[in-house]
């Protein structure tokens, strides 16, 4: 097992290097130099002062040297300082917003799993039934749905028309004065819409995947064996078939992580949730390059970590993977 984990880690190393190279290249796509922002608006900045500023940011050195300096800083999570007026370290700004984004994504992953697996299994077991047909309609619509639009519609319905759910932020203004129970309920109410919506996209994909997986497994010989020896249909489906159909889901979950993280930009912006996605959007609008690059890097590393966890869990669940 340890050997397997080590192998995966070695495989990840070049990917990590590649991620840093791409982040660095994107950063240097910018026309002009990052110091222009500070000097162009200032008519008193002399050529000499500009040169000094460039030296301060190591911009006078060759590219590969700049890359090396940047990577060394990355290794200790020094992502530079924000261009915004608070000039805080980028790493701090991201880390304080990361927990809420991870919480949201974990909740929607759980919701996806809790719904997609039963939906997929039921529609495979009752293939061509009414339920199966309705599910496939839902899947097609799910794939085509602009989720930000669905968010708007649900905000109009539940927030504006019915007034059941709040439509922005993660807590009410009077949050601090609420008793613990009410405060928790307040948080839940704020999270319902964002979590449901970010789960929506992945739900369609996973239920369809689960269905085709299950259909394939049901046709295997060992399922016939299980039926032949007189096991109940329940035991055949939920013990013998389901366990095998569930395995590849682990990989799919790993693959869906970048989509979820990417989607957090949209949902956090729409619902005004103070997470990493919203920070990313605000930094893009404000052209706060250090923050943008920091989040781009963190987003890719999170994906890489998610894939590693998926690989390792797969190996735990399926011993065949470890051996081969």
């Amino acid at each position, binding site marked *: 097992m340890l050997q397997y984990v080590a192998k995966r880690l070695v495989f990840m190393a070049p*990917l990590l290097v590649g991620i840093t190279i791409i982040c660095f290249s994107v950063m240097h796509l910018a026309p002009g130099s990052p110091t222009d922002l500070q000097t162009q608006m200032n008519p008193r900045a002399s050529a000499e002062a500009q040169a000094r500023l460039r030296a301060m940011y190591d911009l006078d050195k060759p590219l590969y040297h700049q890359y090396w300096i940047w990577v060394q800083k990355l290794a200790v999570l020094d992502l530079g300082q924000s261009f915004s007026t608070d000039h805080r370290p980028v790493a701090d700004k991201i880390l304080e917003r990361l927990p809420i984004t991870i919480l949201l994504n974990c909740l929607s992953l759980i919701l996806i799993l809790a719904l997609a697996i039963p939906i997929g299994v039921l529609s495979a077991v009752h293939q061509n039934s009414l339920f199966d047909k309705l599910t496939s309609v839902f899947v097609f619509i799910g794939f*085509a749905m*602009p989720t930000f639009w669905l968010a708007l519609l649900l905000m*109009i319905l539940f927030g504006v028309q019915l007034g059941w759910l709040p439509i922005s932020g993660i807590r009410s203004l009077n949050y601090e004065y609420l008793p613990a129970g009410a405060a928790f309920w307040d948080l839940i109410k704020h999270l319902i819409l964002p979590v449901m919506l970010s789960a929506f996209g992945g739900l369609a994909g996973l239920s369809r995947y689960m269905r085709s997986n299950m259909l394939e497994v049901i046709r295997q010989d060992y399922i016939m064996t299980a039926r032949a020896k007189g096991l109940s249909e329940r035991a055949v489906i939920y013990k013998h078939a389901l366990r095998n159909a569930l395995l590849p889901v682990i990989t799919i979950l790993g693959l869906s992580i970048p*989509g979820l993280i990417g989607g957090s930009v*949209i949902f956090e912006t729409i619902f005004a949730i103070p997470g990493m996605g919203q920070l990313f*959007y605000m930094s893009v609008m404000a052209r706060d390059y250090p923050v943008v690059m920091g989040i781009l890097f963190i987003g890719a590393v999170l994906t890489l970590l998610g894939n590693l966890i998926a690989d390792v869990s797969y190996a735990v669940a399926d011993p065949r993977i470890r051996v081969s």
Partner: protein
Amino acid sequence: MESDFWNRFLKNKMAVAGSLVVLLLFAVSLLAPWIAPCDPSAIDLTQVLAAPSSAHLFGTDQLGRDVLSRMIWGARISLKVGFVATGIAILLGAILGAVSGYYGRWVDAVIMRFVDIMLCFPTFFLILAVIAILEPSIWNIMIIIGLTGWMGITRLVRADFISLKERDFVLAARVIGASDLRIIFIHILPNAMASILVAATLGIAGAILTESALSFLGIGVQPPTPSWGNILTAGKDNIDIAWWLSLYPGLAILITVLGYNLLGEGIRDSLDPRLR
């Protein structure tokens, strides 16, 4: 073979419905100047946020512009973004996938690692980061969506090439002295066209969704150019007073994307019924 395809395709109701949607979209885009009831940029401050009526079927926006007309012109944007972005992705994906699958060895290893690295980035993050640096304009959007969407096609074409290059016709071509380039592009690539076509159709759907999300966030197609996404931005700003601004453009996106998806899946099922 070809008539088999059409027989199966025309029997598939979903696929036919999908192609009708796509054809309708083509027609609307081409005929926009003639079928739009109003000038899409004609501001009428006496008609600000007017509810749907016989004069304005889908109502008006915050500047009194006719929403239906803006949506008809917006269809052009969707069509353009879908085709150009997917064209770029297909071009890149087909060439990289072909080279990777045909040559194998270290060429393959390098290209596939590059694909793995690109897939680590949440696509939406990558697109936004590039937009932060370049100006958001329709051309930049199309190019960026294309440059971040080629990885799936590369893997697909590579898999096709790996199995196709072992076939006898490739050996035959090599025997008569055809160059590698000729074998790749004249002999093998046409045989991989089926899966590329399917990926392209589904890719257009994805590009339209991405563009609308970007325009909705205000970093895609910039006003006053009408796009379905940026009409929805106005919908969000007036969420408590003007539901029509939120409803209709989103419905247009949903139906269009659904149409392309159904068409793509229909083509795939008709090309090879075993894939169902």
